[in-house]
Every structure is written in structure tokens, then in C-alpha cells.
């Protein structure tokens, strides 16, 4: 059963729509990430769910209850801010106790719940510190504890790791995932970092210009993006525009300029609609026909640029279907101007809209 649903939501600023006809549903207990470049509407969506923004149209429900017009302070959602937003005038203990005291929880229970939560986020012993006396990661954990201690019906994260350094970011996202699963709390997580989203989420919604381009499991999105935007966003740098397509069993044949390429259909690959082929630089192969050992999905080209990347070389190959970027590990690099065959492995070439 879907626990959280957004139906036909519209949000606008100054006559300009940021979200329009926006739909989303999230399963109970799962963690969904909203991923996208800045300005794609992911933060707007999160703030709308939190209640910081009002929907102009549409309906937002949680567990069957309509929350569209419920004010922020009556929602009982935990929100973790990018800036952490810890109260600087309160100690760690008082920050975490803030929500409980507003709920008139008795003193003994406040104490028990605050201490238990600080224990969960590994901050026991820091009760009397003030936010300024904590490191970034510790502040982050206080913010999470503060949001969780009220036993929220929904947990919301707004780019919570973007102010931390790289190492800490990896540790914290493991931590967030652990706590989320331990408590089994439904969570919406916003980030522009794809690795972060993929590692932490049950589902990822890739957003662009106020719409969800694709909502899938991280591994599905990574392997089989549905649209050109999603493909580009997750590192498919090479595209071919085709003129026509035929489906032949589980093989899709695509044509352009008298050339035919084959891609696969089915087996969790999604619909593979559209007329655009996409492939990652790592998945393209280079060589002579003998070296490649295949007789289809080949395209002759010429090495235009060769760049040493350390582990591999990166080539830009010029062909009659445009330029392609290829990464290849090799002892003896190609030189500029060398003629070479580009192979698009059938299992790696995908079709996007």
C-alpha cells in the first residue's frame, strides 16, 4: 500500500509554476530520493510535503489522511535541514528535547527518549555541548536525533550531507540508512549527488523541470534510464538519434543513415521507448573487426582526441553519426587520426526517449 501520495500537485511563485500536475507515491517504510540538478523542483517538493509551502492545486495524503491544508506544526514530520538548523542557544540535550517539550511530554519520559535517541546517533556524553562546539558530522547527527525523537510519521531530508567533507559524507549516509531501517520510518531524501541517492535509497525519482523523469530502483535507473535527461544525468555521454525502429522478439532494430543497430528488450529493461540510443564511455569498445569479434553494431571512425586519464585513455572518436567518447585501458594508445571501429555491445546499448 502506498503510504505517501502526491496527486496533481501544483506550486507556483510569481505566476511561474515550479511543480505542475506532480504525482508521487511512496511505500510505507521505504526511503525514496528525489534526485536532480538545482532548480528541478526537488526541494520544492520536499518543502511542500513538510508544509513550508502551500500547494496551489492538488492533494497530499499520508496513510489515507489528507494533509494538504494541515499546518506545519500539526503534521508531526521530522525535517533535517541542509544547514542543520540547530538552535544555537540550546544545548544538544535541549535541542533534541525541543519537540518533546512542546508536546508536553513529562520530564522523565523526555529524559528517557532524548538519551535513547542520542545513543542511537552515537552522541551519548555530548548532552551539555552547544552546537558551536560540535563538528559538522556531530551537528548532523543532533539534527537527525531531533527530528526522530518526536517519532515522526515521515522523515524528510533536505540535502543533509552537502556541507560535510567527502569521507564524512560516506559514513553519514551509511548511518542515515542504518537508523532509517532500524526504525522503519518512511523517508523522503533530497540530493543532487547521484552516488549518495543510489547508495541510500529503495527508490530514486530523477527530477527535471518540475516533473519526475523516472522513478525506479537505483540499479534500474543506473542500468536502464528511460529518458535522455536521466541517461545524461547518470553518465551516458554518447547518444545516437535514429529515424525508425522495429521490434523483433527481444531485439530492437534501429536505423539511421542506412545503418542498423540492435538493442535488447525485456528482462527488467523497462519499455525502451523512443528513438535515441545511449551508451556509457566505459561500455563502448574499440578495435579492429578481428579484435572485436562481432559483425554488427559497428561504426567506423577516426581518433580525434586522446586524453590520458591514469587508469585508462579517453578517446573522442569522430564518425558519420557524430562524436563518441570512449574509455579504454591499453598499453599502446591510439594516436590521433588513426582509423578504428567503434563497437556498441548489444547488451549495453539502451534506447531512451
Amino acid at each position, binding site marked *: 500500500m502506498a503510504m505517501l501520495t502526491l496527486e496533481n500537485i501544483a506550486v507556483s511563485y510569481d505566476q511561474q509554476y515550479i511543480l505542475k500536475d506532480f504525482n508521487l507515491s511512496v511505500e510505507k517504510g521505504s526511503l525514496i530520493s528525489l534526485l536532480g540538478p538545482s532548480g528541478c523542483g526537488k526541494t520544492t517538493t520536499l518543502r511542500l510535503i513538510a508544509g513550508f509551502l502551500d500547494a496551489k492545486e492538488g492533494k497530499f495524503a499520508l496513510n489515507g489522511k489528507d494533509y494538504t491544508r494541515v499546518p506545519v506544526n500539526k503534521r508531526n*514530520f*521530522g525535517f533535517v535541514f541542509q*544547514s542543520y538548523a540547530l538552535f*544555537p*542557544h540550546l544545548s544538544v540535550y535541549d535541542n533534541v528535547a525541543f*519537540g518533546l517539550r512542546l508536546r508536553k511530554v513529562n520530564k522523565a519520559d523526555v529524559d528517557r527518549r532524548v538519551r535513547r535517541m542520542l545513543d542511537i546517533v552515537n552522541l551519548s556524553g555530548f548532552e551539555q555541548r*552547544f552546537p558551536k562546539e560540535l563538528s559538522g558530522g556531530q551537528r548532523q547527527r543532533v539534527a537527525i536525533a531531533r527530528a526522530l525523537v518526536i517519532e515522526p510519521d515521515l522523515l524528510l531530508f533536505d540535502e543533509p550531507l552537502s556541507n560535510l567533507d567527502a569521507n564524512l559524507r560516506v559514513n553519514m549516509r551509511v548511518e542515515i540508512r542504518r537508523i532509517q531501517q532500524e526504525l522503519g520510518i518512511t523517508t523522503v531524501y533530497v540530493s543532487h549527488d547521484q552516488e549518495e541517492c543510489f547508495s541510500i535509497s529503495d527508490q530514486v525519482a530523477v527530477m527535471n523541470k518540475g516533473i519526475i523523469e523516472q522513478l525506479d530502483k537505483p540499479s534500474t535507473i543506473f542500468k536502464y534510464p528511460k529518458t535522455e535527461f536521466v541517461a545524461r544525468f547518470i553518465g551516458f555521454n554518447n547518444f545516437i538519434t535514429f529515424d525508425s525502429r522495429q521490434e523483433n522478439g527481444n531485439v530492437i532494430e534501429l536505423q539511421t543513415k542506412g545503418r542498423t543497430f540492435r538493442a535488447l528488450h525485456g528482462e527488467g529493461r523497462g519499455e525502451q521507448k523512443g528513438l535515441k540510443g545511449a551508451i556509457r564511455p566505459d561500455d563502448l569498445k574499440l578495435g579492429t573487426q578481428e579484435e572485436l569479434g562481432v559483425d554488427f553494431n559497428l561504426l567506423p571512425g577516426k581518433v580525434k582526441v586522446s586524453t590520458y586519464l591514469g587508469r585508462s585513455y579517453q578517446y573522442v572518436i569522430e564518425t558519420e553519426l557524430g562524436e563518441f567518447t570512449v574509455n579504454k585501458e591499453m598499453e599502446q594508445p591510439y594516436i590521433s587520426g588513426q582509423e578504428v571501429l567503434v563497437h556498441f555491445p548489444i547488451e549495453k546499448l539502451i534506447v531512451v526517449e
Partner: protein
Amino acid sequence: MKKSYLTLLLLPGLVFLAAFMVIPILLTVGSTFYHEGRFTVEGYLYFFKDPYFLKILWTTLRVSLVTTAICMLLGFPTAYFISQQSPRKKALLLALAIFPLLTSSVVRSFSWTIILGKKGLLNNMLLSVGLIQEPLNILYTPTAMMIGLIHLFLPLIIITLVGVMENIDTDLVKAAESLGANRFAAFCRVVIPLSVPGLIIGGILVFVGSLTAYTTPALLGGKQQVISTFLYQNAITLNDWYLASVVATIMMVITFVIIMIMNMLANKLNPKG
């Protein structure tokens, strides 16, 4: 090398302050203890034994404290409103708030005499509406002084508070709301505690300003004297420079003590860490 060069930049200011402030203050304070060729505290005993003088001191403190309190009460919500506006609106509203500071205090005080006088605007209005039968006696009372002083000093506290409030992260208020606080609770638990530094600094400015103000009390207070007018009377009208010095020293000590107390309060209430 670089540091000593920087210290050099302070020299002109230091010389000026030493010559025209530190030395005169020391001389003034010294002269109150060394009178007619001997060490004495006679001046202070004379001042503190006289009920008339004490009444002046008390009136001054009362007027200053009430002025400060009312300025805080009026200034706080106003400043919060201004701090929440868009930058353009904020600049406009701040300019409006500062406007009273740009007019001369003599002109402003005279305007108040027109408004507050027996046959002034206020009384005429209240009489014609029928709210009062006899004209109110406001002008030339401590109340008139307070009105004038509040008008004068409200901008100071607003500017200080806006400066502090606009630096309060709006996410903090949102965080409080997401944790279950309504607008009012969020204001009380987050905005007010975090505005304390501004409130204290603004309060010090208003209090010290009211305590030492001369023009406004002189023009609106009538026969009711405050320390500053009393000081002026002693020095200029009665030519009693000794008593004037004593009064000046007392004024300085009071100001100093009040600032210390408020600073201590600020340290206690300020956000930690």
C-alpha cells in the same frame, strides 16, 4: 613590523581621546575629591543628603528606565516585522524608522510642545471627541519627557534589533515549527532568545541616551528637572562648578554600573558557544 605599523594608525585617535576625554574626566572626578585645598567627600554627602537632589536622581532613573522598557516593547515587534521583509522593503522601512534621528532635537521637542500643550492638538482632539472634560496636564511632566525620549531613541533600538534579527536563520523558525511549535511558540522559544544580544545593546544605547539627554527634558520637562538639566543649572546658572562636577561624576558612575549590569545580563542570556 607590520603590526607596529598598524598600531601607529591608532595614535591620532588615542591622542585626541587622551587630551579631550580621559584627562578632562580624570580632572573632573579628581576635583570632586580635592576641594579647597584638602581631600573631601563633602560634595557627595551634600548631594545624597538632600531629598530634592535625590528626587531629581530618582526621576531621571525612572524616566530612563521607563523609556528603555517602552522602546524595547515597541521596537521588538517592529524590528521583527522589518527584518522579515524583502531587502527593498526593508531598506525603505529602515529609512523611515531612522527619520526622527535626522531632525534636530530642538525642532522635534518644540513640535511635541505644540501637540502636548494645554491647548495643544492632543487635548483639543480629546476634548472635542468628549473623552475628557478638562485638558490633560502632559506637557512639562516626566510623561512628556518620556514621550519625547521614546520618539528620539526608538530608531536606535530598531536598527540594532533588525541587525540581529535578520541574521537569525529562517530555517530555525521552520525547524521549530516542524517540531510542533506554532508561530507564537517559535517566536518565544527561538526568535526572542536569539535577539537578546540586540535587545541588550539597544537597551544600553537607549538608557544611556535617556540618562544623559539634555534638550528633550529641558524643553518638555518644564520645572521638572533631571540630572543633566540640574548639572547645567549648577554649572552655568549658579556657577557652582564643584557641585556640577559631583553630579557629573555620579552620572558617569551610574551609566557605568548600568552598562556593567546589562553586559552581565547579556553574558548570561546570550546564545552559548
